[in-house]
Protein backbone atom coordinates (compact mmCIF):
# COMPACT_ATOMS: atom_id res chain seq x y z
CA UNK A 1 0.00 0.00 0.00
CA UNK A 2 1.28 3.42 -0.90
CA UNK A 3 -0.49 5.04 2.03
CA UNK A 4 2.55 4.56 4.23
CA UNK A 5 4.33 7.34 2.39
CA UNK A 6 2.69 10.26 4.12
CA UNK A 7 0.73 12.88 2.27
CA UNK A 8 2.90 15.03 0.06
CA UNK A 9 1.31 18.36 -0.50
CA UNK A 10 -1.19 18.05 2.31
CA UNK A 11 -2.25 21.35 3.76
CA UNK A 12 -2.53 20.14 7.31
CA UNK A 13 -3.93 21.98 10.25
CA UNK A 14 -2.37 25.19 11.30
CA UNK A 15 -3.45 25.29 14.88
CA UNK A 16 -0.47 26.70 16.71
CA UNK A 17 -2.65 28.22 19.38
CA UNK A 18 -3.62 30.82 16.83
CA UNK A 19 -6.67 32.56 18.24
CA UNK A 20 -7.44 34.20 14.92
CA UNK A 21 -8.27 30.85 13.34
CA UNK A 22 -11.92 31.04 12.43
CA UNK A 23 -14.00 28.41 14.17
CA UNK A 24 -15.89 26.30 11.63
CA UNK A 25 -17.97 24.64 14.31
CA UNK A 26 -18.72 25.85 17.77
CA UNK A 27 -20.75 24.91 20.81
CA UNK A 28 -21.32 27.54 23.47
CA UNK A 29 -22.50 26.17 26.78
CA UNK A 30 -24.68 23.71 24.92
CA UNK A 31 -26.95 21.28 26.75
CA UNK A 32 -29.33 18.82 25.21
CA UNK A 33 -32.27 17.20 26.96
CA UNK A 34 -34.38 14.49 25.33
CA UNK A 35 -38.03 14.30 26.28
CA UNK A 36 -39.80 10.99 26.35
CA UNK A 37 -43.00 9.70 27.87
CA UNK A 38 -41.08 8.15 30.73
CA UNK A 39 -39.26 11.35 31.55
CA UNK A 40 -36.39 13.42 30.36
CA UNK A 41 -32.81 12.46 29.74
CA UNK A 42 -29.96 14.92 29.86
CA UNK A 43 -27.68 13.82 27.02
CA UNK A 44 -25.26 16.73 26.93
CA UNK A 45 -24.50 19.21 29.66
CA UNK A 46 -22.87 22.59 29.26
CA UNK A 47 -20.38 21.73 26.55
CA UNK A 48 -18.31 24.42 24.89
CA UNK A 49 -15.96 23.62 22.07
CA UNK A 50 -14.60 25.12 18.90
CA UNK A 51 -13.21 23.40 15.84
CA UNK A 52 -10.86 25.41 13.64
CA UNK A 53 -10.61 25.29 9.88
CA UNK A 54 -8.81 22.19 8.66
CA UNK A 55 -8.73 20.71 12.11
CA UNK A 56 -9.51 17.05 12.86
CA UNK A 57 -11.10 16.66 16.28
CA UNK A 58 -12.19 13.40 17.89
CA UNK A 59 -14.87 13.06 20.52
CA UNK A 60 -14.14 10.14 22.82
CA UNK A 61 -16.26 8.92 25.70
CA UNK A 62 -17.98 5.88 27.18
CA UNK A 63 -20.57 4.43 24.84
CA UNK A 64 -23.97 6.02 25.13
CA UNK A 65 -22.54 9.10 26.77
CA UNK A 66 -24.04 11.57 24.34
CA UNK A 67 -21.26 12.04 21.78
CA UNK A 68 -23.67 11.50 18.94
CA UNK A 69 -25.96 14.13 20.47
CA UNK A 70 -23.11 16.61 20.15
CA UNK A 71 -22.85 15.78 16.45
CA UNK A 72 -26.62 16.10 16.10
CA UNK A 73 -26.44 19.64 17.46
CA UNK A 74 -23.60 20.55 15.11
CA UNK A 75 -25.52 19.02 12.19
CA UNK A 76 -28.65 20.98 13.04
CA UNK A 77 -30.63 17.79 13.64
CA UNK A 78 -31.20 18.69 17.28
CA UNK A 79 -31.42 22.14 18.76
CA UNK A 80 -29.56 22.71 22.04
CA UNK A 81 -31.95 22.93 24.98
CA UNK A 82 -29.62 25.56 26.40
CA UNK A 83 -26.66 27.36 24.92
CA UNK A 84 -26.05 27.43 21.20
CA UNK A 85 -24.50 25.57 18.30
CA UNK A 86 -22.85 27.45 15.47
CA UNK A 87 -21.44 26.35 12.15
CA UNK A 88 -19.63 29.07 10.24
CA UNK A 89 -21.12 31.52 12.70
CA UNK A 90 -24.73 30.59 11.93
CA UNK A 91 -27.27 28.19 13.31
CA UNK A 92 -26.62 24.83 11.66
CA UNK A 93 -29.22 23.77 9.13
CA UNK A 94 -28.97 20.43 7.31
CA UNK A 95 -30.55 21.98 4.23
CA UNK A 96 -27.44 24.06 3.59
CA UNK A 97 -24.20 22.59 2.30
CA UNK A 98 -22.33 23.49 5.48
CA UNK A 99 -22.21 20.06 7.06
CA UNK A 100 -21.73 16.57 5.75
CA UNK A 101 -22.72 13.80 8.11
CA UNK A 102 -21.31 10.30 7.76
CA UNK A 103 -23.14 7.60 9.66
CA UNK A 104 -22.08 4.32 11.15
CA UNK A 105 -23.96 2.43 8.46
CA UNK A 106 -23.52 3.39 4.84
CA UNK A 107 -27.29 3.54 4.10
CA UNK A 108 -26.63 3.20 0.38
CA UNK A 109 -29.82 2.83 -1.64
CA UNK A 110 -29.91 -0.71 -3.02
CA UNK A 111 -31.73 0.19 -6.22
CA UNK A 112 -29.31 2.92 -7.23
CA UNK A 113 -25.94 2.34 -8.81
CA UNK A 114 -22.87 3.61 -6.98
CA UNK A 115 -22.82 6.64 -9.27
CA UNK A 116 -26.45 7.46 -8.54
CA UNK A 117 -25.92 6.89 -4.83
CA UNK A 118 -23.15 9.48 -4.56
CA UNK A 119 -25.38 12.04 -6.28
CA UNK A 120 -28.14 11.71 -3.67
CA UNK A 121 -27.02 14.64 -1.51
CA UNK A 122 -26.61 16.91 -4.54
CA UNK A 123 -30.04 15.88 -5.83
CA UNK A 124 -31.74 16.54 -2.52
CA UNK A 125 -30.07 19.93 -2.24
CA UNK A 126 -30.98 20.76 -5.82
CA UNK A 127 -27.35 21.26 -6.77
CA UNK A 128 -26.83 18.49 -9.27
CA UNK A 129 -25.32 19.86 -12.46
CA UNK A 130 -22.49 18.93 -14.82
CA UNK A 131 -19.90 20.58 -12.63
CA UNK A 132 -20.93 19.00 -9.32
CA UNK A 133 -21.44 15.67 -11.04
CA UNK A 134 -17.91 15.78 -12.41
CA UNK A 135 -16.59 16.69 -8.98
CA UNK A 136 -18.40 13.76 -7.34
CA UNK A 137 -16.99 11.39 -9.94
CA UNK A 138 -13.55 12.81 -9.29
CA UNK A 139 -13.96 12.02 -5.60
CA UNK A 140 -15.11 8.53 -6.52
CA UNK A 141 -11.96 8.14 -8.58
CA UNK A 142 -9.86 9.31 -5.67
CA UNK A 143 -11.36 6.49 -3.62
CA UNK A 144 -10.46 4.03 -6.36
CA UNK A 145 -14.09 3.21 -7.07
CA UNK A 146 -14.44 4.47 -10.64
CA UNK A 147 -14.62 0.91 -11.97
CA UNK A 148 -17.64 0.30 -9.76
CA UNK A 149 -19.69 3.27 -10.95
CA UNK A 150 -22.31 1.12 -12.59
CA UNK A 151 -22.33 -1.51 -9.84
CA UNK A 152 -25.03 -1.83 -7.24
CA UNK A 153 -24.20 -1.50 -3.53
CA UNK A 154 -24.73 -5.19 -2.79
CA UNK A 155 -21.88 -6.01 -5.17
CA UNK A 156 -19.39 -4.05 -3.05
CA UNK A 157 -17.53 -4.95 0.13
CA UNK A 158 -18.25 -3.21 3.43
CA UNK A 159 -15.20 -0.99 3.12
CA UNK A 160 -16.03 0.04 -0.43
CA UNK A 161 -19.61 0.78 0.56
CA UNK A 162 -18.46 3.00 3.40
CA UNK A 163 -16.12 4.82 1.01
CA UNK A 164 -19.06 5.37 -1.31
CA UNK A 165 -20.94 6.86 1.64
CA UNK A 166 -17.95 9.17 2.24
CA UNK A 167 -18.03 10.31 -1.39
CA UNK A 168 -21.77 10.94 -1.08
CA UNK A 169 -21.01 13.10 1.96
CA UNK A 170 -18.17 15.01 0.34
CA UNK A 171 -19.88 15.46 -3.02
CA UNK A 172 -21.60 18.69 -2.03
CA UNK A 173 -18.36 20.13 -0.61
CA UNK A 174 -19.35 20.53 3.03
CA UNK A 175 -17.32 22.90 5.17
CA UNK A 176 -17.62 20.59 8.13
CA UNK A 177 -17.47 16.84 8.12
CA UNK A 178 -19.19 14.99 10.95
CA UNK A 179 -18.18 11.36 11.29
CA UNK A 180 -20.28 9.22 13.61
CA UNK A 181 -18.28 6.03 14.22
CA UNK A 182 -18.03 5.51 10.48
CA UNK A 183 -15.70 2.52 10.75
CA UNK A 184 -17.25 0.63 13.64
CA UNK A 185 -19.38 -1.68 11.52
CA UNK A 186 -16.32 -2.97 9.65
CA UNK A 187 -13.90 -5.78 10.41
CA UNK A 188 -10.64 -4.78 12.09
CA UNK A 189 -8.38 -4.91 9.06
CA UNK A 190 -10.77 -3.00 6.80
CA UNK A 191 -11.23 -0.54 9.59
CA UNK A 192 -7.52 0.28 9.82
CA UNK A 193 -7.11 0.50 6.05
CA UNK A 194 -10.18 2.67 5.63
CA UNK A 195 -9.27 4.97 8.52
CA UNK A 196 -5.94 5.50 6.81
CA UNK A 197 -7.50 6.21 3.46
CA UNK A 198 -10.23 8.48 4.81
CA UNK A 199 -7.68 10.43 6.84
CA UNK A 200 -5.69 10.98 3.66
CA UNK A 201 -8.73 12.21 1.76
CA UNK A 202 -9.73 14.54 4.57
CA UNK A 203 -6.26 16.01 4.99
CA UNK A 204 -5.56 16.38 1.26
CA UNK A 205 -8.91 18.05 0.83
CA UNK A 206 -8.27 20.36 3.78
CA UNK A 207 -11.59 19.38 5.33
CA UNK A 208 -12.59 20.21 8.88
CA UNK A 209 -13.68 17.03 10.62
CA UNK A 210 -15.26 15.95 13.88
CA UNK A 211 -15.07 12.22 14.55
CA UNK A 212 -17.06 10.37 17.18
CA UNK A 213 -15.42 7.11 18.17
CA UNK A 214 -15.03 4.78 21.11
CA UNK A 215 -11.79 3.45 19.68
CA UNK A 216 -9.00 5.27 21.53
CA UNK A 217 -6.21 4.36 19.12
CA UNK A 218 -8.33 5.39 16.15
CA UNK A 219 -8.83 8.79 17.77
CA UNK A 220 -5.10 9.23 18.40
CA UNK A 221 -4.10 7.99 14.96
CA UNK A 222 -6.48 10.32 13.11
CA UNK A 223 -6.97 13.51 15.04
CA UNK A 224 -5.18 16.73 15.89
CA UNK A 225 -7.12 17.09 19.07
CA UNK A 226 -9.07 14.69 21.27
CA UNK A 227 -11.94 15.71 23.51
CA UNK A 228 -12.72 13.22 26.27
CA UNK A 229 -16.25 13.23 27.65
CA UNK A 230 -17.79 11.99 30.88
CA UNK A 231 -20.56 9.37 30.99
CA UNK A 232 -24.06 10.65 30.32
CA UNK A 233 -24.80 13.48 30.42
CA UNK A 234 -21.72 14.26 28.37
CA UNK A 235 -19.55 16.95 29.86
CA UNK A 236 -16.15 17.87 28.51
CA UNK A 237 -13.66 16.14 30.76
CA UNK A 238 -10.35 16.80 29.15
CA UNK A 239 -8.89 18.20 25.96
CA UNK A 240 -5.79 16.46 24.63
CA UNK A 241 -3.81 18.03 21.85
CA UNK A 242 -1.86 15.53 19.80
CA UNK A 243 1.76 16.73 19.68
CA UNK A 244 3.78 17.49 16.58
CA UNK A 245 5.91 14.37 17.21
CA UNK A 246 2.87 12.29 16.24
CA UNK A 247 1.49 14.60 13.59
CA UNK A 248 4.57 15.11 11.44
CA UNK A 249 7.90 13.50 10.66
CA UNK A 250 11.32 15.22 10.80
CA UNK A 251 10.77 16.85 7.39
CA UNK A 252 7.44 18.23 8.46
CA UNK A 253 5.38 15.84 6.36
CA UNK A 254 2.04 14.79 7.80
CA UNK A 255 2.02 11.24 9.10
CA UNK A 256 -0.65 8.75 8.18
CA UNK A 257 -2.64 6.95 10.89
CA UNK A 258 -0.59 3.82 10.13
CA UNK A 259 2.65 5.69 10.67
CA UNK A 260 1.36 7.35 13.79
CA UNK A 261 0.51 4.04 15.35
CA UNK A 262 4.17 3.01 15.02
CA UNK A 263 5.56 6.19 16.50
CA UNK A 264 7.18 6.34 19.90
CA UNK A 265 4.81 8.28 22.11
CA UNK A 266 1.63 6.76 20.64
CA UNK A 267 1.20 4.53 23.67
CA UNK A 268 1.62 7.42 26.09
CA UNK A 269 -1.32 9.13 24.43
CA UNK A 270 -3.26 5.91 24.63
CA UNK A 271 -2.58 5.61 28.34
CA UNK A 272 -3.50 9.23 28.86
CA UNK A 273 -6.87 8.95 27.09
CA UNK A 274 -7.49 5.61 28.75
CA UNK A 275 -6.93 6.95 32.24
CA UNK A 276 -9.23 9.89 31.52
CA UNK A 277 -11.94 7.52 30.35
CA UNK A 278 -11.39 5.26 33.35
CA UNK A 279 -11.80 8.17 35.68
CA UNK A 280 -14.94 9.09 33.85
CA UNK A 281 -16.39 5.62 34.20
CA UNK A 282 -15.50 5.67 37.88
CA UNK A 283 -17.40 8.91 38.36
CA UNK A 284 -20.43 7.47 36.73
CA UNK A 285 -20.74 4.46 39.06
CA UNK A 286 -23.54 4.96 41.49
Amino acid sequence: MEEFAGYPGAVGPDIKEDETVRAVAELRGASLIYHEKRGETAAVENVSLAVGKGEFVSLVGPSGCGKTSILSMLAGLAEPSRGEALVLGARPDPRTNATGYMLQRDHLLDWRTIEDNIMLGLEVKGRLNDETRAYALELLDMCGLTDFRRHYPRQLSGGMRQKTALVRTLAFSPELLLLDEPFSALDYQTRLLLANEVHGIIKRGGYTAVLVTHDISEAIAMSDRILVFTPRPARLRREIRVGQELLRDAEGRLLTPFERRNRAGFNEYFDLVWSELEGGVGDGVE
Partner: protein
Amino acid sequence: MASNKERRTAGTASKEHIAYLRALKKHNRFIIAMQLSILIAFILLWEGAARLGLVNTFIFSCPSRMAATVLRLNAEGKLFYHIGVTMLETVLGFTIGTAAGTLIAALLWWSRTLSRILDPYMVVLNALPKIALGPILIVWVGSGMKAIVVMALLVSTIVTVMTVLTGFNEITGEKQLLMKTLGATKLQSFTKVVLPASVPTVISALKLSVGMSWVGVIVGEYLVSKAGLGYLIVYGGQVFKLDLVMASVAVLLLLAALMYYAVAAAEKRLLAKRGEG
Protein backbone atom coordinates in the same frame (compact mmCIF):
# COMPACT_ATOMS: atom_id res chain seq x y z
CA MET B 1 -24.33 -7.66 -15.35
CA ALA B 2 -20.88 -6.76 -14.19
CA SER B 3 -20.91 -9.31 -11.39
CA ASN B 4 -20.78 -12.06 -13.99
CA LYS B 5 -17.18 -11.13 -14.59
CA GLU B 6 -16.27 -12.66 -11.27
CA ARG B 7 -18.02 -15.90 -12.06
CA ARG B 8 -16.67 -18.24 -14.62
CA THR B 9 -18.91 -18.78 -17.59
CA ALA B 10 -19.98 -22.25 -18.65
CA GLY B 11 -17.32 -22.35 -21.35
CA THR B 12 -14.45 -22.10 -18.88
CA ALA B 13 -16.03 -24.04 -16.00
CA SER B 14 -14.16 -26.91 -14.36
CA LYS B 15 -15.21 -30.53 -14.77
CA GLU B 16 -16.54 -30.60 -11.23
CA HIS B 17 -18.62 -27.53 -11.89
CA ILE B 18 -20.10 -29.01 -15.07
CA ALA B 19 -20.94 -32.18 -13.14
CA TYR B 20 -22.51 -30.06 -10.42
CA LEU B 21 -24.63 -28.16 -12.93
CA ARG B 22 -25.69 -31.41 -14.56
CA ALA B 23 -26.75 -32.88 -11.24
CA LEU B 24 -28.67 -29.72 -10.46
CA LYS B 25 -30.51 -29.85 -13.78
CA LYS B 26 -31.28 -33.53 -13.32
CA HIS B 27 -32.76 -32.87 -9.91
CA ASN B 28 -34.89 -30.02 -11.27
CA ARG B 29 -36.18 -32.27 -14.05
CA PHE B 30 -37.06 -34.89 -11.44
CA ILE B 31 -39.05 -32.34 -9.44
CA ILE B 32 -41.03 -31.23 -12.50
CA ALA B 33 -41.62 -34.85 -13.55
CA MET B 34 -42.99 -35.66 -10.10
CA GLN B 35 -45.24 -32.60 -10.10
CA LEU B 36 -46.71 -33.60 -13.47
CA SER B 37 -47.08 -37.23 -12.36
CA ILE B 38 -49.21 -36.23 -9.39
CA LEU B 39 -51.54 -34.25 -11.64
CA ILE B 40 -51.83 -36.99 -14.24
CA ALA B 41 -52.30 -39.71 -11.61
CA PHE B 42 -55.06 -37.65 -9.98
CA ILE B 43 -56.90 -37.21 -13.28
CA LEU B 44 -56.47 -40.85 -14.26
CA LEU B 45 -57.62 -42.16 -10.87
CA TRP B 46 -60.65 -39.90 -10.93
CA GLU B 47 -61.55 -40.89 -14.48
CA GLY B 48 -60.89 -44.58 -13.76
CA ALA B 49 -62.97 -44.55 -10.59
CA ALA B 50 -65.82 -42.92 -12.51
CA ARG B 51 -65.64 -45.44 -15.36
CA LEU B 52 -65.59 -48.37 -12.92
CA GLY B 53 -68.59 -46.93 -11.13
CA LEU B 54 -66.69 -46.41 -7.87
CA VAL B 55 -67.81 -42.78 -7.70
CA ASN B 56 -71.12 -41.38 -8.82
CA THR B 57 -70.47 -39.07 -11.78
CA PHE B 58 -73.75 -37.28 -11.15
CA ILE B 59 -72.30 -35.96 -7.89
CA PHE B 60 -68.56 -36.00 -8.55
CA SER B 61 -68.44 -35.56 -12.32
CA CYS B 62 -65.24 -36.78 -13.98
CA PRO B 63 -62.44 -35.30 -16.11
CA SER B 64 -63.81 -36.47 -19.46
CA ARG B 65 -67.26 -35.03 -18.74
CA MET B 66 -65.67 -31.80 -17.52
CA ALA B 67 -63.64 -31.58 -20.73
CA ALA B 68 -66.78 -32.22 -22.76
CA THR B 69 -68.58 -29.48 -20.87
CA VAL B 70 -65.76 -27.02 -21.55
CA LEU B 71 -65.79 -27.92 -25.25
CA ARG B 72 -69.56 -27.55 -25.40
CA LEU B 73 -69.40 -24.15 -23.73
CA ASN B 74 -66.78 -23.14 -26.23
CA ALA B 75 -68.85 -24.38 -29.12
CA GLU B 76 -71.77 -22.33 -27.87
CA GLY B 77 -69.41 -19.35 -27.72
CA LYS B 78 -70.00 -18.94 -23.99
CA LEU B 79 -66.68 -20.13 -22.57
CA PHE B 80 -64.58 -17.08 -23.35
CA TYR B 81 -67.44 -14.74 -22.64
CA HIS B 82 -67.67 -15.98 -19.04
CA ILE B 83 -63.89 -16.14 -18.69
CA GLY B 84 -63.58 -12.62 -20.07
CA VAL B 85 -66.15 -11.20 -17.64
CA THR B 86 -64.49 -12.80 -14.61
CA MET B 87 -60.98 -11.86 -15.74
CA LEU B 88 -61.95 -8.25 -16.37
CA GLU B 89 -63.55 -7.98 -12.94
CA THR B 90 -60.52 -9.54 -11.26
CA VAL B 91 -57.96 -7.39 -13.08
CA LEU B 92 -59.99 -4.26 -12.33
CA GLY B 93 -60.22 -5.38 -8.70
CA PHE B 94 -56.55 -5.86 -8.06
CA THR B 95 -55.18 -2.99 -10.16
CA ILE B 96 -57.54 -0.42 -8.66
CA GLY B 97 -57.18 -2.09 -5.26
CA THR B 98 -53.39 -1.88 -5.31
CA ALA B 99 -53.34 1.67 -6.67
CA ALA B 100 -55.92 2.91 -4.17
CA GLY B 101 -54.33 0.96 -1.33
CA THR B 102 -50.90 2.39 -2.07
CA LEU B 103 -52.30 5.89 -2.32
CA ILE B 104 -54.12 5.59 1.00
CA ALA B 105 -50.97 4.12 2.57
CA ALA B 106 -49.01 7.12 1.27
CA LEU B 107 -51.50 9.51 2.87
CA LEU B 108 -51.34 7.66 6.17
CA TRP B 109 -47.52 7.65 5.95
CA TRP B 110 -47.53 11.37 5.31
CA SER B 111 -49.60 12.20 8.37
CA ARG B 112 -48.60 10.17 11.37
CA THR B 113 -51.45 11.82 13.27
CA LEU B 114 -54.06 10.77 10.71
CA SER B 115 -52.61 7.27 10.75
CA ARG B 116 -52.94 7.10 14.54
CA ILE B 117 -56.49 8.45 14.46
CA LEU B 118 -57.62 5.98 11.81
CA ASP B 119 -55.74 3.01 13.22
CA PRO B 120 -58.65 1.36 15.09
CA TYR B 121 -60.90 1.78 12.04
CA MET B 122 -58.32 0.08 9.84
CA VAL B 123 -57.99 -2.78 12.30
CA VAL B 124 -61.75 -3.29 12.51
CA LEU B 125 -62.24 -3.02 8.74
CA ASN B 126 -59.43 -5.52 8.26
CA ALA B 127 -60.98 -7.93 10.75
CA LEU B 128 -64.45 -7.71 9.21
CA PRO B 129 -65.21 -10.46 6.68
CA LYS B 130 -65.95 -8.12 3.78
CA ILE B 131 -68.21 -10.74 2.21
CA ALA B 132 -70.78 -9.89 4.89
CA LEU B 133 -71.23 -6.57 3.11
CA GLY B 134 -72.39 -8.31 -0.09
CA PRO B 135 -76.14 -7.81 0.38
CA ILE B 136 -75.59 -4.18 1.35
CA LEU B 137 -73.58 -3.66 -1.82
CA ILE B 138 -76.37 -4.97 -3.98
CA VAL B 139 -78.69 -2.41 -2.45
CA TRP B 140 -76.21 0.42 -2.70
CA VAL B 141 -74.38 -0.20 -5.96
CA GLY B 142 -76.93 -2.34 -7.72
CA SER B 143 -76.35 -5.76 -9.22
CA GLY B 144 -73.97 -6.32 -12.08
CA MET B 145 -70.31 -5.80 -12.70
CA LYS B 146 -70.02 -2.64 -10.63
CA ALA B 147 -71.05 -4.40 -7.44
CA ILE B 148 -68.65 -7.25 -8.13
CA VAL B 149 -65.66 -4.96 -8.70
CA VAL B 150 -66.54 -3.01 -5.56
CA MET B 151 -66.63 -6.29 -3.68
CA ALA B 152 -63.19 -7.23 -5.01
CA LEU B 153 -61.92 -3.75 -4.02
CA LEU B 154 -63.30 -4.10 -0.51
CA VAL B 155 -61.54 -7.40 -0.05
CA SER B 156 -58.19 -6.33 -1.52
CA THR B 157 -57.73 -2.66 -0.62
CA ILE B 158 -57.51 -2.85 3.16
CA VAL B 159 -54.88 -5.58 3.07
CA THR B 160 -52.88 -3.54 0.58
CA VAL B 161 -53.05 -0.45 2.77
CA MET B 162 -51.84 -2.36 5.82
CA THR B 163 -49.03 -4.18 3.98
CA VAL B 164 -47.76 -1.13 2.10
CA LEU B 165 -47.98 1.18 5.10
CA THR B 166 -45.92 -1.25 7.17
CA GLY B 167 -43.36 -1.32 4.36
CA PHE B 168 -43.27 2.49 4.15
CA ASN B 169 -42.77 2.84 7.89
CA GLU B 170 -40.01 0.24 8.03
CA ILE B 171 -38.02 1.98 5.32
CA THR B 172 -38.57 5.33 6.95
CA GLY B 173 -37.21 4.12 10.27
CA GLU B 174 -34.12 2.84 8.57
CA LYS B 175 -33.28 5.66 6.19
CA GLN B 176 -34.79 8.65 7.93
CA LEU B 177 -31.55 9.70 9.61
CA LEU B 178 -29.68 9.72 6.31
CA MET B 179 -32.31 11.87 4.62
CA LYS B 180 -32.40 14.20 7.61
CA THR B 181 -28.64 14.69 7.53
CA LEU B 182 -28.92 15.60 3.86
CA GLY B 183 -31.65 18.11 4.70
CA ALA B 184 -34.27 16.35 2.58
CA THR B 185 -37.89 17.50 2.64
CA LYS B 186 -40.66 15.05 3.40
CA LEU B 187 -41.61 14.88 -0.25
CA GLN B 188 -38.00 14.16 -1.23
CA SER B 189 -37.76 11.44 1.41
CA PHE B 190 -40.88 9.89 -0.06
CA THR B 191 -40.02 10.09 -3.74
CA LYS B 192 -36.31 9.36 -3.49
CA VAL B 193 -36.24 6.76 -0.75
CA VAL B 194 -39.52 5.50 0.69
CA LEU B 195 -41.41 4.86 -2.54
CA PRO B 196 -38.58 3.30 -4.57
CA ALA B 197 -37.50 1.21 -1.59
CA SER B 198 -41.07 -0.04 -1.25
CA VAL B 199 -41.43 -1.31 -4.81
CA PRO B 200 -40.86 -4.93 -3.70
CA THR B 201 -43.42 -4.44 -0.90
CA VAL B 202 -45.96 -2.99 -3.30
CA ILE B 203 -45.44 -5.90 -5.66
CA SER B 204 -45.94 -8.47 -2.93
CA ALA B 205 -49.04 -6.52 -1.89
CA LEU B 206 -50.15 -6.78 -5.52
CA LYS B 207 -49.66 -10.54 -5.40
CA LEU B 208 -51.76 -10.72 -2.26
CA SER B 209 -54.30 -8.45 -3.89
CA VAL B 210 -54.62 -10.75 -6.91
CA GLY B 211 -55.68 -13.60 -4.65
CA MET B 212 -58.03 -11.36 -2.68
CA SER B 213 -59.53 -10.01 -5.87
CA TRP B 214 -60.39 -13.53 -7.05
CA VAL B 215 -62.18 -14.15 -3.75
CA GLY B 216 -64.11 -10.90 -4.02
CA VAL B 217 -65.07 -11.46 -7.64
CA ILE B 218 -66.27 -15.04 -7.24
CA VAL B 219 -68.27 -14.19 -4.13
CA GLY B 220 -69.66 -11.15 -5.92
CA GLU B 221 -70.69 -13.29 -8.86
CA TYR B 222 -72.35 -15.78 -6.51
CA LEU B 223 -74.44 -12.95 -5.15
CA VAL B 224 -75.44 -10.80 -8.06
CA SER B 225 -74.17 -11.67 -11.48
CA LYS B 226 -75.62 -12.94 -14.72
CA ALA B 227 -72.24 -13.87 -16.17
CA GLY B 228 -68.79 -15.07 -15.21
CA LEU B 229 -67.29 -18.27 -13.83
CA GLY B 230 -68.78 -17.64 -10.37
CA TYR B 231 -72.17 -17.36 -12.01
CA LEU B 232 -71.63 -20.65 -13.88
CA ILE B 233 -70.65 -22.38 -10.64
CA VAL B 234 -73.71 -21.16 -8.76
CA TYR B 235 -76.02 -21.81 -11.71
CA GLY B 236 -74.59 -25.32 -12.16
CA GLY B 237 -75.09 -26.01 -8.48
CA GLN B 238 -78.69 -24.83 -8.53
CA VAL B 239 -79.69 -27.00 -11.49
CA PHE B 240 -77.55 -29.90 -10.26
CA LYS B 241 -75.23 -29.87 -13.26
CA LEU B 242 -72.11 -30.90 -11.40
CA ASP B 243 -70.23 -31.22 -14.69
CA LEU B 244 -70.66 -27.51 -15.22
CA VAL B 245 -69.65 -26.71 -11.64
CA MET B 246 -66.52 -28.85 -11.77
CA ALA B 247 -65.55 -27.66 -15.24
CA SER B 248 -65.91 -24.03 -14.17
CA VAL B 249 -63.83 -24.66 -11.04
CA ALA B 250 -61.13 -26.28 -13.17
CA VAL B 251 -61.06 -23.33 -15.56
CA LEU B 252 -60.95 -20.97 -12.59
CA LEU B 253 -58.05 -22.91 -11.12
CA LEU B 254 -56.15 -22.65 -14.37
CA LEU B 255 -56.80 -18.91 -14.71
CA ALA B 256 -55.86 -18.13 -11.12
CA ALA B 257 -52.62 -20.09 -11.50
CA LEU B 258 -51.78 -18.39 -14.80
CA MET B 259 -52.42 -14.97 -13.37
CA TYR B 260 -50.29 -15.69 -10.31
CA TYR B 261 -47.38 -16.85 -12.43
CA ALA B 262 -47.74 -13.86 -14.74
CA VAL B 263 -47.53 -11.48 -11.77
CA ALA B 264 -44.60 -13.42 -10.32
CA ALA B 265 -42.78 -13.23 -13.66
CA ALA B 266 -43.45 -9.50 -13.90
CA GLU B 267 -42.09 -9.10 -10.37
CA LYS B 268 -38.94 -10.96 -11.25
CA ARG B 269 -38.33 -8.85 -14.34
CA LEU B 270 -38.94 -5.61 -12.52
CA LEU B 271 -36.64 -6.46 -9.64
CA ALA B 272 -33.94 -7.67 -12.02
CA LYS B 273 -34.11 -4.30 -13.72
CA ARG B 274 -33.40 -2.68 -10.38
CA GLY B 275 -30.39 -4.89 -9.85
CA GLU B 276 -32.01 -6.95 -7.15
CA GLY B 277 -32.90 -10.03 -9.13
